């Protein structure tokens, strides 16, 4: 192949290199320092990569162990409050009407979730690969459990239209929370591996 095209290849390889402008690096660095103001760019960024856009531009995008741990602790705290509200709320409703047993178990599920997330938040401060893997496994399991729980709860709630809406909202919120936490973990894992390579 080389013999056939040798002449053309020689011309290509002997062509003088083009030189970028002197201030090229300076201009690139200027664009990096100044955040882009383009509204559509931001919208596109939000749509294509929601969690990273929340984190802002690149230097803030990296997820450290502390960030990840804080997210889990916040999620745990949220579920803890939600569990307390559920306990008292369901007790009050139960006094007025019959509630299926599965629904009555929800506060306990929520409190177990709160305990699990708070424990993971503490575990993630250790900055250990095993902690990251354990957290990732538990978070994925959590998404699965939320989905199954939602389907079972839906069967029990089918008789009351408003409770169907409530079940759907809580299930989708739970799944979103799981997706968010697993994304944070994945980013932390990427950052963790990069730092470990040194």
């Amino acid at each position, binding site marked *: *192949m080389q013999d*056939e*095209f040798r002449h*053309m*290849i*020689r*011309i*290509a*390889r*002997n*062509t*003088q*290199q*083009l*030189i*970028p*402008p002197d201030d*090229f*690096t300076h*201009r*690139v*660095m200027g*664009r*990096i*320092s100044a955040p882009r103001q383009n509204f559509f760019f931001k919208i596109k960024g939000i749509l294509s990569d929601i969690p990273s856009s929340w984190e802002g*531009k*690149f*230097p803030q*995008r*990296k997820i450290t162990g502390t960030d990840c741990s804080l997210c889990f602790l916040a999620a745990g705290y949220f579920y803890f409050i939600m569990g307390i509200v559920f306990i008292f709320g369901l007790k009050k409703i139960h006094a007025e009407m019959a509630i299926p047993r599965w629904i009555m178990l929800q506060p306990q599920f929520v409190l177990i979730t709160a305990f699990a997330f708070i424990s993971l938040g503490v575990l993630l401060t250790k900055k250990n690969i095993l902690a990251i893997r354990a957290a990732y496994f538990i978070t994925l399991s959590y998404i699965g459990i939320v989905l199954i729980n939602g389907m079972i709860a839906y069967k029990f709630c089918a008789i009351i239209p408003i409770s169907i809406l409530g079940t759907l909202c809580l299930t989708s919120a739970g799944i979103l929370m799981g997706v968010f936490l697993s994304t944070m973990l994945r*980013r932390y894992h*990427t*950052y963790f591996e*990069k*730092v470990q*390579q*040194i």
Partner: protein
Amino acid sequence: MNPEYPNVTFLPPELYMNQRQEKELIVHILKGHQDKYALIVEKYKGPVFNLICRMTGNYQDTEDLAQETFVRAYESLWRFNTKKRLFPWLCAIGLNLTRNHLKKKGRDFTAPNQEAIASDRDNPEELIVRQQEADRLAQCLGKLPIRLREAVVLRYYQDLSFEEVSEILEISLSAAKMRVYRGLEKLRELMAP
């Protein structure tokens, strides 16, 4: 350096030898030392600029696209796998941007000002002939379909190996060879008087 083409200075050996240093540099940037990114830009601006210029044939567009390449690379640096080399990754980003740009802009290609490298042996007449050949080749290159053009540019203007071409274009080694061959064949047809 390629002994057959001593003037090709796109990828000096140190770019490959300093991969560990490059990794360290990337980790520094990831840790928040934004200013260190200037070293990466400085190191690769030449090859990236040339690659894009050979593809677009327009100096102004090249400037914009090359800048955008480095900005995008910076924004996505956290995704970069430090086990791999940075240069092919930068080329892939640059080529993606260039492809999109060329699709939007259509087939408007003006060959960049080609200057054949003069050696001591060349007399002025030979130099003019070589200059004309380089211009003609660049014009024909602009007529190639984008996919073939990028393969030829990477292999012969950038002097990358077939393995590197396949890595950048995300195709198999045999597909890269085939694409380069088809590009050369098409170029030969276009160059024929």
